[in-house]
């Protein structure tokens, strides 16, 4: 029986995405929801509704690290600079002053986790142990 959802698109038809890892500096630690709201507000102000729709924004909730205030945003590869600019244009969340800056950009979530969130796979351990 067919599933009640469209099939996964062929690779050439899928969006070209990038993952932006960001870090937040603020007076106090902030919650994920506040940052998401502030970002949407900033991006909508900067590029409008059409631009935001093309940017294909997705916040990866599982990757939010409250302890060091780091998170991951998925976006279209043509909108990376707009996303950076929108992050830079957030100066306040609630009544707290903030600076948000990107740690870097990655093409896959796997690479982003490894580069910016210190995640190590079994392969990493194997290569490290073979080197030593």
């Amino acid at each position: 029986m067919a599933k009640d959802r469209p099939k996964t698109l062929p690779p050439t038809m899928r969006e070209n995405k990038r993952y932006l890892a960001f870090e937040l500096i603020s007076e106090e630690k902030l919650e994920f929801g506040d940052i998401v709201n502030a970002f949407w507000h900033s991006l909508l102000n900067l590029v409008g509704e059409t631009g935001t729709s093309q940017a294909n924004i997705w916040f990866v909730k599982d990757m939010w690290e409250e302890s060091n205030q780091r998170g991951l945003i998925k976006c279209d590869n043509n909108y990376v600079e707009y996303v950076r600019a929108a992050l830079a244009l957030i100066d306040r969340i609630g009544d707290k002053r903030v600076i948000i800056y990107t740690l870097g950009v990655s093409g896959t979530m796997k690479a982003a986790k490894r580069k910016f969130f210190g995640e190590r796979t079994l392969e990493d351990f194997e290569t490290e142990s073979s080197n030593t």
Partner: protein
Amino acid sequence: MEFYDLNIQLEDLEELDEVIEMAKRLGYSGIGLIEKYANLDRFNKIREKAKKTGDLRIIPGIEVGAEGVRELKRAISKAKKHSNFIIVSGGEYKINRAASEDSRVSIISHPEYKRSDSGVDHVIAKFASDNGVAIEINFHEILETFRKIRSFVLSHMRLNVELAQKYGARVVINSGARGKWDMRDPRELAAIGQILGMNLEDSMNSVSEIPKSIVR
């Protein structure tokens, strides 16, 4: 790559140490701390501080503002006795024009400030190019405006970038920070350059090579 933010104007000098820490955290190699000519005592304090800040280079500079061209020239001559790094507070067309014609000036700051046009035309862009005066994109102008006004500011800045590129004038992107919370990562400032029509290389140069060459 070395990054510089050449326009930080502190409201409160007590915050200086925090600004230095933030600049190091954001990856800057140097910051320009700017004071108005009227506040020479504050300028001297910054100059003293600049002598003992280790790996972060602090460049004390003077911002010159004037109502008329003659007053501007006089103010530049006075400021030049104290610093080689002079920023002219732009906005008035005749001030932008006079600053672009004066090779003693390092940067024309926010030429579009409080204007209904970009404040720069082909003549200013040509003079700025010939005299080595850089045209500034001031991030603080974007940060402090909203919606309709921000769209005008971005549009004027985009035109300034286009003119500067056509006539070979240098463009610098500065935060224009008033305190540590207004500072931004150099890569984010470069992103602003890109949304204003620069390519990646030019926008990165606007926060690294160009400011570095200005304060060499």
